[in-house]
């Protein structure tokens, strides 16, 4: 829209953000909690006059410095770089709204660096009380960085009253600010325990290893337990759509939540059993496993937070594809190609249709979908869709699936996008959906080279549409020179209707008997593959299937209600039952 799209069709920007962000948060939270851990580890060493513990603390401080100051700080800058490349519009908004929040964070980052260097390089060379104070300066600065970033990240999910008044402080202290701050603080402390556990596993002195393993185990376990109420509070303050997504209407979020739960439980077991009860079990492999669990736990939390924000990059402000909500109406009226800045060809003609379709894909879909990549691959997802189904789906995409942004543009642009997705990618015929001459166009494209319409009407005119559809599927049996019709069910019906009445009368566009396969293609195929449905419905009775079509939301809240007629529901039921019996 306002910015160009960095287009790497098989990789996708989202994957790059996730890669950098998950690794960064794993280290940056350690950078916060680890500061406090170092203070208390050093205090323990001083209190117990234990040089072994002090040596451990210094070693850990060195590891801490190398990991947080290098990898942590540069990946932090890296997130800034990558989000600006992938979603410059949302990044620009965050920078402009919170510029002084970022600037304050920069000051704390500077204090953090100086304090970290002084703490490490002056370990053992400074009065211990002063050295501990330096540790506190470090920890408070690092925690303030978390405090500031937390406000801005929380704003993206729950902008709260900022939406009405645009006030910096209302946006910063947004509804999810405090629960998120509590949750992140305890996650940071938990990770500090996990990292300490890792350093302890490398410790040569058995006594120190056991002592610091138990110490680290208590840290991780205590923080993990303390984080739970904040996690619950966090979910409670989420806006309703986000809550619904988190509570299972999104299968991907549910899967991420399961991974997170597994990671947290495994961590709980490791820290309890191989940390507190039997610290001797802290082998390097066990510590590495604990690290993986920590990464999974925080990774899934961040992933869920990001996913729950969909379809927005900043909730209620800007969609994930950089289109501002307030601009949607204007774009729909005037057309995307006419209103967007970064469009090469603004005219939508027959010649420019494929390139316009590609342009629309890049600008409106690519933010979340790759084209041929392994991450959310739209090529694979559109492979079984017909043009009419795709076109109709695009036009009501946000209503059907809330977490997808609405298509921004005219109907003609939606058709061009549909034509690109199913035509250019999968070689399917492009025909404007719902027009009265769809059958005629199919005829022109597939039959007219050898047949005149009136010749075929003579022989097919009296047959029911269903029978003609059946014939179209086995044209090779009629003549070896013909191939069976390869279009979708709805295309077959349109063509059959045309063949019955080539002049294109009412009957041509409204077949008397609804076709179940066509209805499936138009209403179900976007989310369900026939084979998946067949596997589920194998043991279902017809009555149950028919009843389910009346109340799809009872199966899943994510499914929109099916608003077909009773006849159409019957036809779709027959098709689904047949699919279940003969997959």
């Amino acid at each position, binding site marked *: 829209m306002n910015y160009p799209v960095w287009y790497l069709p098989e990789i996708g920007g989202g994957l790059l953000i996730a890669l950098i962000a998950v690794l960064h948060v794993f280290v940056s939270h350690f950078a916060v909690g680890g500061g406090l851990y170092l203070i208390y580890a050093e205090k323990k060493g001083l209190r117990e006059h234990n040089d072994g513990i002090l040596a451990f603390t210094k070693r850990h401080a060195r590891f801490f410095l190398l990991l947080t100051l290098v990898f942590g700080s540069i990946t932090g800058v*890296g997130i800034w770089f990558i989000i600006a490349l992938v979603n410059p519009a949302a990044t620009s908004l965050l920078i402009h709204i919170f*510029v002084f929040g970022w600037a304050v964070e920069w000051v*704390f980052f500077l204090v953090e660096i*100086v304090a970290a260097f*002084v703490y490490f*390089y002056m370990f053992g*060379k400074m*009065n211990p009380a002063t050295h501990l104070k330096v540790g506190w300066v470090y920890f408070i600065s690092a925690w303030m960085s978390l405090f500031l970033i937390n406000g801005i990240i929380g704003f993206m999910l729950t902008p709260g009253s900022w939406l009405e008044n645009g006030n910096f402080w209302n946006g910063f202290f947004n509804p999810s600010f405090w629960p998120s701050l509590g949750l992140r603080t305890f996650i940071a402390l938990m990770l500090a325990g996990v990292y300490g556990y890792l350093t302890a596993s490398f410790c040569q002195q058995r006594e120190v290893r056991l002592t610091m393993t138990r110490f680290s185990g208590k840290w991780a376990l205590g923080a993990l337990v303390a984080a739970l109420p904040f996690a619950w509070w966090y979910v409670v303050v989420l806006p309703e759509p986000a809550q619904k997504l988190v509570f299972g209407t999104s299968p991907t979020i549910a899967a991420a939540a399961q991974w997170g739960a597994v990671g947290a439980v495994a961590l709980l077991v490791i820290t309890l059993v191989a940390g507190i009860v039997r610290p001797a079990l802290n082998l390097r492999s066990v510590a590495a496993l604990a690290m993986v669990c920590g990464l999974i736990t925080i990774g899934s939390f961040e992933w869920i937070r990001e996913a729950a924000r969909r379809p927005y990059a900043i909730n209620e402000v800007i969609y994930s594809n950089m289109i501002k909500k307030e601009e949607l109406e204007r774009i729909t009226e005037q057309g995307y190609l006419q209103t967007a800045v970064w469009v090469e060809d603004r005219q939508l003609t027959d010649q420019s249709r494929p390139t316009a379709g590609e342009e629309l894909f890049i600008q409106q879909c690519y933010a979340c979908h790759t084209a041929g990549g392994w991450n959310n691959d739209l090529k694979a997802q559109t492979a079984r869709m017909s043009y009419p189904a795709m076109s109709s789906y695009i036009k009501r995409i946000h209503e059907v699936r809330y977490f997808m942004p609405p298509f921004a543009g005219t109907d003609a642009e939606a058709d061009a996008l549909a034509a690109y997705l199913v035509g250019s990618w999968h070689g399917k015929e492009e025909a404007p959906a719902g027009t009265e001459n769809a059958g005629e166009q199919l005829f022109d494209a597939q039959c007219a080279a050898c047949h005149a319409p009136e010749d075929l009407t003579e022989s097919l005119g009296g047959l029911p549409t269903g029978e003609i559809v059946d014939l179209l599927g086995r044209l090779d049996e009629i003549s070896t020179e013909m191939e069976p019709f390869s279009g979708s069910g709805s295309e077959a019906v349109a063509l059959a209707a045309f063949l019955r009445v080539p002049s294109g009368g009412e009957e041509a566009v409204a077949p008397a008997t609804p076709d179940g396969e066509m209805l499936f293609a138009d209403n179900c195929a976007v989310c369900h593959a026939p084979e998946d449905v067949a596997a589920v419905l194998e043991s279902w009775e017809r009555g149950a299937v028919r009843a389910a079509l009346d109340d799809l939301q009872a199966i899943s809240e994510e499914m929109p209600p099916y608003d077909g007629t009773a006849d159409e529901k019957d036809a779709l039921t027959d098709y689904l039952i047949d699919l279940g019996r003969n997959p």
Partner: protein
Amino acid sequence: MATLYIPAADTIPVAWGWFQFFLLLTFPLHLLAMNAMLGGLAVGVGQQFIGGSVRDRLAHRLAVALPLVIAFAVNFGVAPLLFLQVLYGQFMYTSSILMGLFWISIVPLLIVAYYGAYLYDFKFSRLGGAGKWIGLAVLLMLLTIAYFFVNNMLLMSLPEAFAGYFQHRAGTMLASGEEVFPPRYLHMVTGALAVGGLFVALVGQFRSEQDGELAAHARDVGMKVFFRLTLVNICLGVWYLLSQERDTMLLFMGGNRGATAVFSLALLVIVVILVAAYRRRLAVTVGSVVLLVYLMSFMRAWLRSDYLAEVFRLDQLAVVPQYSPLIFFLVVLLGGLIVIGWLLKKTAAALVESGASR
């Protein structure tokens, strides 16, 4: 006229002058830290290649300082990048996308270079002769990062080139083919290497009590490097100036009163610097260089404004006033500086007390 593709700017919370002030206040700090990093490393590696006891000792001191100056070069880079995005985000985000593949590669390059620097520091003695090759590899990575930065800073000022996006959607565009690019890059890097020489001289002074020979050698090498490279850089600066379009060049020669005044003052400071450096007056040279870097940054800002003048002026940015966050920032900045002062004071006291240093 070809179609221009320029995104609309977002609103700002306080008058643009504040952001320009913060940008011009912090950017020279980044330049000075970056110069110490690049130039210090180059001299250190060079010393190690030539060989000899005192040169190795100097290279070691510079290797110890390297991770610290990298940390500050990065940190001092964050603030100006922030303020630049506030003022010129619509241009900078666009140019970053046009060269996206190169721009994002800065992140892994910097991580590897940074770890290389720590390896070069922590294992200096154990690495022996291999260390200089690691130092050289780090230096080349940092020069590559500088190459990408100069590319982006130039590309963002050339909105007429933005249409090239449609041939480079994967982010493979660079501005290095522009006539002004070679002198701009060379002027920047040579300046960094020269100022790095001063950093070498300063590092040596911190060891003057423990190792007088090292201090004298560092001062000698550092000042020599600075003086010679500054002479080269004056020639490069002239080339850079002449590579500009005539109207742009004339800005600094009477076309704009402020730009001309700053340019004239900079020329005067250069003369002072050359004389001071020739006479090995370290303190005067360092002070004048800091002033010069600020003056050069002001000139650079004028240059950018002029490049973009036909499509954008800073006073076109819409202000939706909210001053309390600015006050919050100023208070925290002051508090942060006090805390840093306390940290440095305690460190210095501890070093004096223990009589030890690394």
